[in-house]
């Protein structure tokens, strides 16, 4: 078993190590991928062009960037001797054979296309190539307000451009002489260009114009200064690039110079329908929320109503006349207790000792007398626990709804009624310092409820308990044991719940293990323990501490085999003789007779007897015998 365990451990450690290495490798390697290093490419539509001399031909310029194409500034070089620029760019330098394409917004898609138009001059072989390019990744588009103001968003990131674009141009045939003047050309090509561009670009709205002035500031920053003067030659373009302050009055000029596509994340075009839909959705949501709240509220009311009813009932009970008539009606049972106490830890037959038939019955008067005697005898002693007229009342629904729906149906039908269970009914007694008090009673008679009330876990419905709760220690077995944890972990968990500090547990750990005789099993999961082992461990933890001033033992004394039973009894005796006041709940009459100086008998929630253990136990057993006789 142990080796398997260690094997598992080694395996898991190995796996963890592999994981760590893996993550470490990831951390080391991944930065080289660099999430921000956006790359952009500038390419031409065809690998080569073979126009006929004298003819115009189109050259597609593509900007590609995986992060979305943003603002870009391209310079395309051509041989002015072989080619003649016709249009499509935002500016040109005819002497040096340069065409500029400036786009200050981009479209956010992975690629953007520009269309240039050239005219072939003579038969020759030359090339067009990208000279200097700047491409920015597409970021959040600047937000344009309705009044035309522009709110710029985060700065775009500059892309590094890899791969130099080049396309050979072979011109075939001879050309007629080119006659056109450069000034006219852009205007001529406007139409051409608009034809070639996608339809969406014609849908440009005046909004776009409004943003241009501000955007141009960006352009100026982005374009290296040497390039700007070149642009000035072209009148139309200079208007958009240079004269920032002047509102471009003619929409066409801008559109033609620089086809803009404005991406709007909000999709304002289809607002009305969506709002309607969402409004309906919201209505449904809010409606159902309100309905749910109402349901919950109604059921809350039901609870309240019950509470009030119960209070009335209690009031009525406290009226002596009323009580006489109704006492018999109370159904007193505590199903939960039956379960917890009968957990197989012990069987009653083992412990109950035979008794003779000479038991006497006690009337109320006797009880009174015994009480008085007790009081007279111990009056000078300190009273540590005083239980006064304690009533504990439970509601049990006679009908258990399977769910909210069912519950509501039944509620509407007024089918739901509640039974009031009196786990304790006007119980009073006192415990003085140094006493060892046994509490007896049949299953479900309210013993454990009484202990819970004394220890403070429950508050009584009426009546009061006076006790210094700080001095109380409730010993129960295996409270909070978790079967999935090892015994060692359970010692700490259970110990902490009982109220031991970490230091204390560290110090007493060995003692606990030794007492429980579980030295070899502490790293084992408790679910593999036998029930005897579990209770031994529980007992060892529960009694590890120095005895508190008031000890409450709930079925602690019938644990394990005979040897352990003796051992545990000795331990308890030790604690008792240490001067603690002790409350013991037990079914074992023997235990009580042996240890207690006083006995309290509770039957069906009522206090039957308080007094000398021998007398009370005799009466208890007499009742038990007579009941079984009736049963037979």
């Amino acid at each position, binding site marked *: 078993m142990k080796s398997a365990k260690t094997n598992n451990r080694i395996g898991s450690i190995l*796996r963890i190590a592999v994981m760590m290495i893996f993550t470490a490798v990831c951390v080391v390697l991944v930065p080289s991928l660099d999430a921000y290093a956006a790359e952009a490419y500038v390419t031409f539509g065809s690998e080569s062009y073979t126009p006929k001399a004298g003819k115009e031909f189109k050259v597609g310029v593509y900007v590609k960037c995986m992060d979305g194409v943003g603002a870009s500034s391209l310079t395309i070089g051509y041989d002015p001797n072989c080619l003649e620029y016709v249009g499509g760019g935002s500016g040109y330098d005819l002497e040096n054979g340069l065409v500029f394409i400036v786009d200050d917004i981009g479209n956010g898609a992975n690629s953007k296309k520009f269309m240039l138009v050239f005219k072939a001059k003579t038969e020759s072989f030359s090339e067009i190539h990208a000279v200097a390019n700047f491409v920015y990744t597409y970021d959040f588009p600047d937000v344009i307000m309705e009044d035309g103001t522009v709110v710029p968003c985060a700065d775009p990131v500059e892309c590094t451009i890899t791969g130099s674009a080049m396309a050979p141009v072979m011109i075939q045939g001879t050309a007629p002489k080119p006659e056109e003047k450069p000034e006219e050309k852009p205007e001529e090509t406007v139409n051409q260009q608009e034809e070639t561009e996608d339809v969406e670009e014609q849908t440009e709205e005046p909004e776009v114009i409004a943003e241009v002035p501000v955007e141009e500031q960006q352009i100026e920053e982005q374009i290296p200064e040497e390039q700007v003067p070149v642009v000035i030659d072209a009148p139309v373009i200079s208007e958009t690039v240079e004269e920032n302050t002047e509102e471009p009055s003619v929409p066409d000029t801008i559109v033609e110079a620089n086809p803009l596509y404005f991406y709007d994340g909000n999709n304002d075009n289809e607002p009305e329908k969506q709002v309607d839909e969402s409004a309906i959705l919201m209505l449904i949501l809010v409606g159902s929320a309100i309905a749910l709240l109402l349901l919950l509220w109604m059921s809350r009311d039901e609870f309240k109503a019950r509470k009030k009813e119960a209070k009335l009932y209690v009031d009525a009970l406290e009226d002596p006349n009323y009580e006489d008539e109704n006492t018999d009606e109370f159904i007193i049972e505590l199903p939960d207790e039956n379960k917890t106490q009968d957990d197989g830890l012990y069987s009653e037959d083992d412990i109950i000792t035979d008794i003779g038939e000479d038991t006497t019955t006690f009337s109320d008067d006797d009880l009174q007398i015994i009480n008085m005697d007790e009081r007279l005898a111990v009056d000078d002693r300190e009273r540590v626990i005083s239980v006064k007229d304690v009533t504990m009342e439970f509601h049990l629904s006679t009908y258990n709804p399977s769910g909210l729906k069912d519950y509501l149906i039944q509620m509407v039908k007024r089918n739901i009624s509640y039974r009031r269970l009196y786990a304790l009914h006007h119980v009073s007694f006192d415990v003085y310092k140094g006493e060892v008090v046994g509490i007896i009673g049949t299953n479900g008679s309210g013993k454990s409820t009484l202990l*819970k009330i004394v220890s403070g876990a429950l508050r009584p419905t009426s009546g009061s308990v006076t006790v210094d709760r700080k001095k109380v220690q409730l010993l129960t077995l295996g409270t909070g044991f978790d079967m999935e944890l090892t015994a060692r972990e359970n010692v700490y968990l259970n110990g902490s719940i009982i109220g031991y500090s970490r230091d204390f547990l560290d110090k007493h750990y060995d003692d606990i293990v030794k007492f429980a005789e579980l030295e070899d099993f502490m790293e084992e999961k408790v679910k593999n323990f036998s029930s005897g082992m579990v209770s031994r461990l529980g007992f060892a933890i529960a009694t590890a501490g120095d005895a508190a001033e008031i000890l409450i033992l709930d079925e602690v004394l019938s644990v394990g085999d005979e040897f352990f039973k003796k051992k545990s009894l000795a331990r308890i005796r030790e604690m008792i003789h240490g001067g603690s006041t002790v409350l013991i709940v037990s079914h074992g009459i023997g235990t009580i007779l042996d240890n207690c100086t006083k006995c309290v008998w509770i039957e069906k929630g009522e206090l039957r007897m308080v007094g000398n253990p021998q007398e009370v136990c005799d009466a208890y057993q007499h009742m038990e015998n007579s009941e079984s006789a009736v049963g037979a």
Partner: protein
Amino acid sequence: MKGRFSDILQYVFVIRELTSREIKRKYARSSLGIIWSVLNPLLMMVVMSLIFSTMFKKSIENFPIYYLTGQTVWGLFNGATNSAMTALVDNKTLLIKAKLPKHTFILSRVYTALVNFGYTCIAYILMLLVFRIKFTLTMLLFPVGIFFALVFSIGLGYLLATEYVFFDDIKYLYGIFLTLLMYMSAIFYPVENLPEVVQKVVNMNPVYLVILFSRECVMYGHVPEAWVWARLSAWSVASVVLGMIIFRVQENKIMQTI
């Protein structure tokens, strides 16, 4: 005074022990154990990024971090409230037998979620390094946002735990509510894509507010705006006060019903 101090120490010790039980229990049968708390959000991030990062490429910069920020915060809130809900019922016997303040169990569940969140944060910090998010001073505000989330969760936890004692159905209702809340928290999509009406609702969502808060201070290096602070504080205080009151009022009835 000294007694009170040791009481608090004991209280902390109990919560820690309960928490370590929860965690050990949760991973009792898995061989990787607590590593899953780190691995799970990472894998989720990968999956979500694969699916959604191209979809929201234009509007979300650095989608994986965007998602992971939302997911860690959501995980904290989800784990804390969901487990706090069943805290009282699950610890029935302890509640009756042990002399412990009853809210120990609720707090220990929330604390468990926080510890889990701590492990998730390892993954988060790792990813911040991998994606080269620059360190800014505003990142130090991140714990403040988490504090808000925690306080809000505690309040809601009290409420849910109390109600769960009386109505089992709360569990299912809350499940649906959580789904709604998750989609209203803009964990993997940009809020700007929503219609304006819904945006307004989302801006009221406390979980989204925490996520927004975290994104602002971790990803974008901004100090969150005043209205975010205001709404978060309002939510947290309201939830805790309400939760405490309801819990206090119902305390004895809880003991009887359980």
